[in-house]
Structure formats: structure tokens, C-alpha cells
């Protein structure tokens, strides 16, 4: 599964009991795929010593401040691995 630019995605809301690169402030929020960046090892696996780690597409995902914080007119773009996301 992969996402095209413009696709709406929701960040998984869970709070894993291990290292992750999902910043807390985007968990459960809906954003828009800006672009697929590259394929990289999933840091959650690397930190847990899973060998080999999963390799996944990492996406630039844009969120609106109003959605994240309830106010503000800026956008925040966060790089997120595919398994952090579900189609919204």
C-alpha cells in the first residue's frame, strides 16, 4: 500500500511502549500527503534491535495548525513512516 500526493491520512493514535518517531502532537490527527520522500528503515524496529528492520516509505505529511491546536493559520509538515498512517 502506498499513498499518492494529496491523499488524506490519519496518524495512528496509539502510544507505543517503545521508541517511535511519531511526535505526540500529531497522533490521531488527519493530514495530507505532500510527497513520498524515500524508503528508510523503521526506527521503532531499529531501536528494539529487530534485525533486519522493516524498510518502508517515509512521507512528508502536512497538518493545519487549526486542526492540531484549535487555532493558528500555519501548517506543520512532519515526516512519517507508512506504518504510522492509515488512509483517512
Amino acid at each position, binding site marked *: 500500500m502506498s499513498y499518492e500526493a494529496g491523499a488524506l491520512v490519519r496518524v495512528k493514535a496509539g502510544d507505543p511502549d517503545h521508541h517511535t*518517531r511519531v*511526535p505526540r*502532537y500529531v497522533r490521531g490527527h488527519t493530514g495530507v500527503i505532500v510527497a513520498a*520522500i*524515500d524508503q528508510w528503515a523503521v526506527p521503532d524496529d531499529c531501536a528494539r534491535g529487530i534485525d533486519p528492520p522493516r524498510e518502508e516509505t517515509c512521507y512528508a505529511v502536512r497538518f493545519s495548525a487549526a486542526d*492540531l491546536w484549535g487555532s493558528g*493559520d*500555519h501548517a*506543520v*509538515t512532519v515526516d512519517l513512516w507508512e506504518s504510522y498512517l492509515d488512509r483517512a
Partner: protein
Amino acid sequence: MTGHDDLPVAARARRLEERLIAAELTSDDEMDEFLTRLYTKASPVNGARMVARAWTDPQYRDLLLSDGDAAAQEMGFGDLTYALRIVPNTETTHNVIVCTLCSCYPVSLLGPSPSWYKSLAYRSRAVREPRAVLAEFGLRLPAGTQIVVWDASAENRFLVLPGRPPGTDGLAEEELAALVTRDGLIGTAAV
């Protein structure tokens, strides 16, 4: 050495180094060589030179925007140990860089990061209220300017490509590079 050898944090860092050496993950020579390379070559002058060239050379600008690593390499600043992504300011968009999870930063092109970049205050406020943060840096953007914050949460390291200041048509590339500041490359200044 650095002149900070008597600080408590230096003793802590040294204990960590000794553990890593004992585990045969690195050596004193390897760390010295790495730090020397980093601190003698890493400087915001590198990022400024890339920006000035992009202002004067459309082909280089295209390369910079499509493949940051190749653009750094072409200026002699490779091999980068990270994926470099350039985010260009426009008449209507202003970009700001932050790393909310830690303090990711393109050190080789910007030099060691300023302490405020690593502070909890900057890291939490830059994504929450960037317009207010930028105003505290002295950068008051027009209300119509869209601010885009880039959180370096994965393997990308970001560099802002500021807009070329008006009235600089006659300047040579070197003179233009001298106008570009470290904060302009982070996005906390206009240039």
C-alpha cells in the same frame, strides 16, 4: 581540547566515551578524527554559499530543490550523512525548521546548532505559535504570509532557501553569500 573539560557534563560525556571504547564501538582516535573534520569544515558559510549560487544560477537552484545531497556534493560539501531537503521561501510562504523530538540539524552546512534550537521552548513553540516565535526573533511577517513549519522527525535534514533580497541585482555570488545568515537558513530570519 575545547576548554570545557572542567564542566560536569564533560566528565559525563567522557564516561560515555569510555563505555563505547570498552565495547569496541569506537576509539579515541576515531572520535578525534570525526570531531576535527566536523568542526573545521562545518559552518553556516557552506549553506550561505549554496543559497547565493541558487540565487544566481537557475540550473543549480533546480538541482538544490530536487536533490539537496547532490547540490551539496557539487559545492564540495559532500558526502552528507543525511538526506538534505531544501524548502524555498516564496513571496507568500515562509518556512521554519525545527526538530521537536530532539535537535536534528544539518550541522555540516550550518555549523553546530545554537543552544536555543535545542531548547524545549523553541522546539515546543515553533510548531504551536511560529508567528509569535518569529516576532521574538525580530521577524514580523505580513499577516498574509503562510508559515510552514518543517519538523525533522525522520532522516531528512532541512535547509531554508530564503528569497533574494531586493536591490541586490549588481552583487556577485560571494557578496550575496555574505548577506545570508545562519538564522535565515533555519527560517528565524528573512535572509
